[in-house]
Each structure stands twice: as structure tokens, then as C-alpha cells.
């Protein structure tokens, strides 16, 4: 366990916990970007450069911006602030805590300690591209189809239908 891992883990956990616990929705999204940047840094630490930068680009550049846009567009005009947490928040947190307990117990009691760290693999972007174009070409095509469908679907769902009604 080294210092950089501990630091990044603290950043990630604090950021994501703040994202799920703060009152103001925009603050939540800003905290989320900190947490997800921490995850991206963890990827970099593990030697997955491409995935780390993709993570920053997709989550900080796209998902966070989309989320704040959605928050701005759904800003309710009512002055009274509703409670942040749902009515059954005790049940929810107990469920989440027990899930964590079970997972942690399973990880702790597994035989993973036998694994030793293999030498840092040299992963170039070229190799990733080759793999995407040869071994994983079908999933890649499917992903393209899925993203196109999602693009069109999101536009159709979010489009303003008021003009047609008039």
C-alpha cells in the first residue's frame, strides 16, 4: 500500500460521498467530478493511460456537464426546499452498508493475497487500437450502433413537442 494510492483513494471516496450527501445538486455534481477524476488517476496509476483519459473526457467533459444542464433545466421554481433524502433513507443506507459489509468480507476472506503484482505491462494506444479492430470488432460495431441509437433516442425524448400540439 503506497502513499499515492491512499491519497487517491481518499480523494475518490470523499468526492463521491460528498456527491451523494450534499444538499445543493450542483455542488453534488462538482464533487462528483472530483471523485471521478480520482478514479481516473487510479486508472493512470494502474497503467491504463487510455482508459484514464477517456474517463476524464467522458465523465468530466460530458456526463457532468449534461447533469448540470439537466439540473438547470429542471430547476423548480418553488421556494420551499424539499428534504434532500427520501422518506425511507434509513432502509436505503442500511441496505448499502450491508452490501459493503458483505463485499468487504468476501474480499477479505478470499485467496487473493496469493497474487503478486506482475511487472508493469507496456500498453500502447496502438495495441488497444489493434485489439479494437481485430478481436473486439463486433463489440465495437455494436457500441457504435448503441451510441447512435442513444443519440437519436435522447434527442427524440427530450425534444419539445409543444409546437406539434399547437
Amino acid at each position, binding site marked *: *500500500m503506497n502513499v499515492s494510492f491512499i491519497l487517491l483513494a481518499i480523494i*475518490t*471516496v470523499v468526492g*463521491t460521498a460528498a*456527491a*451523494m450527501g450534499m444538499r445543493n*445538486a450542483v455542488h453534488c*455534481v462538482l464533487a462528483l467530478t472530483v*471523485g471521478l477524476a480520482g*478514479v481516473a488517476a*487510479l*486508472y493512470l496509476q*494502474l497503467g*491504463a493511460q*487510455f*482508459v484514464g483519459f*477517456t474517463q476524464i473526457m*467522458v*465523465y468530466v467533459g*460530458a456526463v457532468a456537464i*449534461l*447533469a448540470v*444542464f*439537466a*439540473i438547470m433545466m*429542471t430547476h*423548480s421554481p418553488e421556494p420551499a426546499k*424539499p428534504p*434532500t*433524502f*427520501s422518506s425511507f433513507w434509513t*432502509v*436505503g*443506507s442500511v*441496505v*448499502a*452498508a450491508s*452490501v459493503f459489509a458483505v*463485499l*468487504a468480507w468476501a*474480499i477479505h476472506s478470499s485467496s487473493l*493475497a496469493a*497474487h503478486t*503484482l506482475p511487472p508493469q*505491462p507496456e500498453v500502447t494506444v496502438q495495441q*488497444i487500437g489493434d*485489439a*479494437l479492430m481485430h*478481436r*473486439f470488432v463486433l463489440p465495437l460495431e455494436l*457500441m457504435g450502433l*448503441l*451510441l447512435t*441509437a*442513444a443519440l437519436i433516442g*435522447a*434527442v427524440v*425524448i*427530450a425534444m*419539445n413537442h409543444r409546437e406539434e400540439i399547437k
Partner: protein
Amino acid sequence: MNSLQNYLLLSSLLFSIGLAGALIRRNAILVLIGIELMLNAANLNLIAFWRFGPNPAALTGIMFAIFSISIAAAEAAVGLGIILAAYRHSKTTDLDRMNSLRG
């Protein structure tokens, strides 16, 4: 305690935070973000297993992570679109008040 276990513990903690958020937040957008966090925890697991696994040259973990990130992006776009449509309909993103099936 070796390093893989640390990564797995961290990712399970992330997953639980995301799960807690998805279960207890009232704002639909933040519920969606909780789901994104759970997906991220899975990605961290995939990358950690790739790094500590027996055959990192096969790049399987990285590929899974890349596809998972793209699916998460598509999910976020469609999810936020649905939330916007629902907001236009019921004038709220509060999930406790979105409790009627009739239009």
C-alpha cells in the same frame, strides 16, 4: 494485505456509496449519478483485475472498461433525456412526488 485487495475494497466502497445515493436521494438526476458511480466501481474492478491478472497483454480488462464507459455515457444521455421529459410532464424531479401513473 496486498494491493489488489485494496483496490477491490475501494471499488466496493464506491459501489456502496453509489447504491446508497441511488436509494436515498430524492432528486432523479442524483439517482442517475449514483448509478453512474456504481458503473465506475465496476470499471475500477475490471482495471484492477486486468493489472493484477495472469495475462495483462490480452487487454481484456481495458476493453471491458472502454465499452463500459461508452455504455455509461449512452445511459447518462438517455437517462437525463427521460428525466427532462418526466419533468416537463410532472413539473418536478423529486422522486417521492412522482408517484402517479396517470398522465
